[in-house]
């Protein structure tokens, strides 16, 4: 029993969890017909349910999971994979139909029109009644949390943002607040709003498909599932006091200390590589950082335009292409920074704390 718990604790370390999840996602997108079948779903969901029930016997796990505010997130842990599986299964079926030239499931009924009254209105009514029942049942079972009166001088450890912002709070581990708290969230919103304008692929409008929109779906799924939902779940269940990592079965002990000694890029190069002291002027000191960032945001789009994204460049045109690549690079910067942190304990690529400008 102990061995399994330790193994799961080991597995749920952010380094492994995120890499595994991304790999799993891309492999499943590569072979969707294998992953998104009814049988796979039955196995996965019964496995998750079993895992949850068995873990409930562990006191520490129960303590965190049964906290009233965390119950909806456990619900989301089941809902989001279910709907991912469901939409993918529909996409796989539609792709097979397209391949065989058969009409799409949606097409069969798209021509027929039905009267809104009674059909749509009646189903909506039933849906509303069912939802009210669920809400009342849920409220009867779980009392809403009310802790000690607010005390600005006694900060609990850990102090967590509301659960839907825990993704951003998790990003704080790797980026400075101005990036993780302001720039990235606005990029997420801008990125979402830009999707319709940079996705010129006419196909896939109004029906589930994967083959016809492979690129957009995989980018969106990576962004939404791994970088948002997974980080929310990670932030809720696996982050304890001092925002240090705690496995699902570990007791949240205030005194747990993790060896967190991170080094800036400038220190790596000047001190470790060149053996010199750090220069005084911040601009000179961070010159390598600046070069890296500029190269990342300017050189890569140009190179890609010539090489693998050549098709995009031609279809999208310069403006759409550059916004798309910029947004893509911004999204990719999180996993890249994570990897740099895990491998090289890299703290800042550009580190000018005097002006709060750290990347």
């Amino acid at each position, binding site marked *: 029993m102990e061995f399994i718990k330790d193994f799961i604790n080991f597995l749920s370390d952010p380094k492994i969890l995120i890499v595994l999840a991304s790999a799993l996602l891309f492999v499943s997108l590569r072979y969707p017909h294998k992953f998104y079948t009814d049988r796979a779903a039955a196995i996965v969901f019964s496995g998750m349910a079993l895992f949850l029930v068995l873990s409930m016997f562990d006191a520490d796990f129960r303590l965190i999971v049964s906290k009233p505010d965390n119950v909806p997130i456990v619900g989301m842990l089941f809902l989001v994979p279910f709907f991912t599986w469901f939409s993918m299964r529909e996409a796989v079926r539609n792709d097979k139909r397209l391949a065989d030239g058969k009409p799409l499931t*949606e097409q069969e009924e798209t021509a027929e029109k*039905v009267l809104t009254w009674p059909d749509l209105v009646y189903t909506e009514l039933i849906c509303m009644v069912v939802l009210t029942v669920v809400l009342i049942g849920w409220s009867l079972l779980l009392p809403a949390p009310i802790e000690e009166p607010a005390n600005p001088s006694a900060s609990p450890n850990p102090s967590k*943002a509301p659960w839907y912002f825990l993704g951003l709070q998790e990003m704080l581990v790797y980026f400075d607040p101005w990036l993780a708290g302001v720039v990235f969230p606005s990029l997420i919103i801008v990125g979402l709003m830009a999707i319709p304008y940079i996705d010129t692929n006419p196909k896939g409008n109004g029906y589930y498909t994967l083959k016809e929109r492979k690129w957009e779906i995989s980018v969106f799924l990576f962004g939404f599932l791994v970088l948002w939902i997974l980080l929310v779940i990670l932030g809720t269940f696996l982050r304890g006091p001092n925002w240090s990592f705690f496995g699902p079965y570990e007791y949240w002990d205030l005194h747990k200390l993790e060896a967190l000694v991170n080094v800036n890029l400038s220190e790596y190069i000047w001190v470790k590589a060149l053996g010199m002291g750090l220069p005084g002027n911040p601009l000179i000191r961070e010159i390598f950082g600046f070069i890296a960032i500029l190269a990342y945001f300017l050189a890569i789009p140009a190179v890609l335009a010539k090489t693998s994204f050549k098709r995009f460049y031609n279809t999208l045109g310069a403006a759409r292409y550059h916004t798309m690549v910029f947004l893509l690079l911004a999204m990719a910067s999180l996993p890249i920074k994570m990897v740099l942190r895990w491998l090289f304990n890299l703290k800042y690529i550009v580190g000018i704390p005097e002006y709060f400008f750290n990347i």
Partner: protein
Amino acid sequence: MPNLKDRLREGLEFLSPSNVGKYIQESQIYRSIFRVGVPDSDRKRMLVMLGSVFLHLHPVKVRKSGIRMRYTWCMGGITFFLFLVLTFTGLLLMFYYRPTLEYAYVDIIDLREQVPLGIMREIHRWGAHAMVISVWLHMYRVFMTGSYKPPREFNWNVGVILLVLTLLLSFTGYLLPWDQLAIWAITVGSGMARATPFLGHEGPGAALLTLGDIPLVSNTSDARFALLGGRFVGEAALLRFYVLHCVGLPLVAGFLMAIHFWRIRRDGGISGPV
């Protein structure tokens, strides 16, 4: 003079259910309210849809594929319904909750302890969590079905703004119980505003915005201060969040929802293969 017995029979017969039903339905009051009456014909089924201010949200006839649960997951409907539930329960809670430091916490305790139907608070809170999840799933479905593609791009953007508004609604609501969970969640959340580039006093570029050597952006005049109405989460923040949560954000969200529903109809109803 008709004798008593048949007058009684006449009265009883008058009281028979169908008769009463007909009697009511023919009354002027009833007809003034329900113009169309019981929709037992296609024509009436269409008229009832057009006639009702709520139902005319939907078109009179709708594509079968568009309303398949398999296709839409009904997420949009659920979100809107949850929004209505939250408005209703929120209104009830406003009867008992006073957003001042003195009473906020103890009013929430009162809701738990002795206010009749104090369970409204639970429904409000779990409804809010459910709404956030359903909004994400709705976006997820719309993306997976590619329903953002033209002609629905603008509607997708309105949706994104509505998503952000939902998160803000939940964020402002989170502070109101004024317990440790609330104040520290908001402190962490609003801590990010401190680091806004140029507008946050700990953000990059804030030092540049100075009038001579007077810093325009300081900890008493930056984005966080604007958000909280003070340097830390205090009574001003509670009041400000209360007003945003009860009036500001719901109005804007309602307004955008109207646009959102309208554009669904205008951009060709529920998306489907062309």
